[in-house]
């Protein structure tokens, strides 16, 4: 390697702060623990609401609130219709850190970070991640596909396998991680990077499918879980080997995890409460009868008023908007699980969560039901569940409360971050703010349009 990068980021998707500490204490992650001995334990960091990886990483990459970058979840509706669309880097607004750094002449590298597909043109290499359909399309410049193909690089582990066999999933995760590690080491020595960010998605996958099993312990699958984390630690060790003791480094996750009690089919609940009327045949999570549906939802917990003038065929008059939101909020908070426990922790209004263009904080006065793009696509209410209640859509689900092969769900308060040679803001830290320290470390000014200020979590969440 000519010289180590000026800043290295390794992100481990969905590793909770508490789990990282427990894994280190139990000796599963010695390389990470060694780093902590010299540079302190990981800090707790707040994720985004609703807590979804694509939203979290879009906020990380753009340094903006979702009201400005426009990625509100993995699924959205096409503006003015009930057709589904899948936001990605092509629809995300604002330059990402790789682009900002490129504009200042920095050499940048990114691999596998969610919401970087389709890869934008940068001064360096940007390899997309989850939801990129093929090696031909995953990378900028596209010619990198040849190298990736030569090492049998996998964009992501295959969750279809996990649904069928968790044992096979472990094997699939191991291969995916080994190839990622190989590619990381190859690219580390391939250029004089200023910014080098590699992402591991498998930690999120294994938490989704094995978290409860691992916490119960004492099974082959639980052993497989800890074994996978040892392999992740091996990747950390191989990275540290190459970059040495002095290269500024950031190791972080984008959200935490907790075990699932129930997968909650929120669309079905809205049907029961008379808010949503499904269409005759249900072909998609939004196959609703718009004339009879006063509200509908998208995963996770994003509830929309079917507002006239904004939605494709809205039936709620603008003057009813506030009253409808108030009643929806009451109905959501009233929801109980089969044991009589409350499901929803709080319901946040869009104006308390999303920031419109020109604002660097929530804007209460901005209770506009319309709003300017991309803020206008935001959900009107965001239902935030108690831990254990994983909010789904499930318009055609057989019942509201289900359990499936999934064992873990995302939590917002307990992402983690560990740094070496990087100044982080004190107090509460949110993943959105990290563009600040990254640009700072590379002497690139952060534009005023970035949302780098600390703001408290929305009321009721904590």
């Amino acid at each position, binding site marked *: 390697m000519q010289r180590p990068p000026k800043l290295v980021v390794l992100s481990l998707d969905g590793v909770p702060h508490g789990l990282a500490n427990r894994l280190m204490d139990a000796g599963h992650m010695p390389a990470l623990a060694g780093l902590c001995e010299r540079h302190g334990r990981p800090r707790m960091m707040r994720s985004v609401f609703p807590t979804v990886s694509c939203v979290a990483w879009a906020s990380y990459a753009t340094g903006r609130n979702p009201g400005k970058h426009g990625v509100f979840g993995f699924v959205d509706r096409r503006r003015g219709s009930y057709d*589904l669309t*899948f936001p990605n880097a092509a629809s995300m607004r604002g330059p990402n850190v790789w682009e900002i750094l490129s504009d200042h002449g920095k050499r940048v590298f990114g691999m596998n970070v969610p919401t970087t597909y389709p890869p934008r043109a940068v001064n360096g290499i940007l390899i997309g991640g989850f*939801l990129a359909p093929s090696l031909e399309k995953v990378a900028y410049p596209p010619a990198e596909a040849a190298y990736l193909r030569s090492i049998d690089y996998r964009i992501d582990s295959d969750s279809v396998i996990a649904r069928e066999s968790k044992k096979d999933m472990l094997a699939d995760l191991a291969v995916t991680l080994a190839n990622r590690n190989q590619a990381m080491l190859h690219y580390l020595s391939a250029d004089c990077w200023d910014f080098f960010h590699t992402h591991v998605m498998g930690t999120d996958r294994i938490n989704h499918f094995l978290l409860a099993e691992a916490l119960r312990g004492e099974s082959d699958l639980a052993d497989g879980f800890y074994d996978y984390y040892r392999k992740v630690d091996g990747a950390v060790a191989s990275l540290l080997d190459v970059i040495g003791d002095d290269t500024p480094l950031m190791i972080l996750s984008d959200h935490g995890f907790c075990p699932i009690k129930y997968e909650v089919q929120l669309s079905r609940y809205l049907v029961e409460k008379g808010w949503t009327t499904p269409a005759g045949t249900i072909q998609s999570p939004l196959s609703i009868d718009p004339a009879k549906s006063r509200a509908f939802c998208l995963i996770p917990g994003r509830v929309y008023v079917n507002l006239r003038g904004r939605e494709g065929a809205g039936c709620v008059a603008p003057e009813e908007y506030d009253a409808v939101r108030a009643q929806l909020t009451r109905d959501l908070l009233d929801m109980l699980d089969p044991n009589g426990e409350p499901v929803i922790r709080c319901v946040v209004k869009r104006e308390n969560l999303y920031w419109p263009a020109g604002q660097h904080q929530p804007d209460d006065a901005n209770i506009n039901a319309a709003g300017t793009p991309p803020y206008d696509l935001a959900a009107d209410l965001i239902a935030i569940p108690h831990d254990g209640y994983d909010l789904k859509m499930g318009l055609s689900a057989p019942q509201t409360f289900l359990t499936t092969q999934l064992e873990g769900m995302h939590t917002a308060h307990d992402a983690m971050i560990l740094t070496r040679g990087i100044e982080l803001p004190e107090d509460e830290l949110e993943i959105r703010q990290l563009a600040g320290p990254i640009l700072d470390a590379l002497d690139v000014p952060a534009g005023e349009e970035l949302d780098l200020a600390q703001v408290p979590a929305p009321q009721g969440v904590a």
Partner: protein
Amino acid sequence: MDKLSELENQSIYIIREAYHHFNKLALLWSIGKDSTALLWLCRKAFFGHLPFPVLHIDTSYKFEKMYKFRDEYARKWGLDLIVARNEEALARGVSCEGNKLECCNELKTNALKQAIAREGFEGLLLGIRRDEHGIRAKERYFSPRDEQFKWDYEDQPPELWDQYKSQAAEDTHVRIHPLLHWTEIDIWRYVQRENIPYTELYLSCEGKRYRSIGCKTCCSPVASTASNVDEIIAELEVSTTGERDGRAQDKENTYTMQKLRALGYM
């Protein structure tokens, strides 16, 4: 010379070049407006009689009106029509209700591969145009494909001063795109001038018409009141939407949905 005649001349030149260079040449006819216009140009290039076959890749999911149109004009124009279907995949029940990516791959790409292997075609005439889609803007008039059908758009022969590379290595074929420089509205103006037949799917029916046609399962009509070619041209002159907006661009979406479903997001 007017613009349409210039376009026509250039296309006929390319068609004749292709016929001169390739012993085994075929025209890929999708029954849509572009490849039908191309068919018309080929007939003009050879004074009404096509000296090579016309290949229709039939997924079996095309519109009834397309099949009727195909058979009617194959007869009227005395075409040597080859209909290619991936019978093995159809027998397995491949359809877009399962996996759209697989469906297109089996019923279009593999059906074409089989036909090329069976008939030994070296050159294929296609009616694609640069303005249809961003990726098509990078195309050449003579565009080599390897045995895997891979198109290496970063390594293409230059086409300067109307000099075209028409040599193909073994196991490869060359795609020839005589309409590359036409636009959607050029096609309709040419259809109007030459009175070229087209299927009535392109005309408004209950406020909607198809602007681009393929499999009936994967095409949606666009809002339109255009009931004849003049009205289509008038509509296109002011249209700001994409020609292929009604085509399922959702092969990738289907892939995305599968991935999200496995993770419980759908």
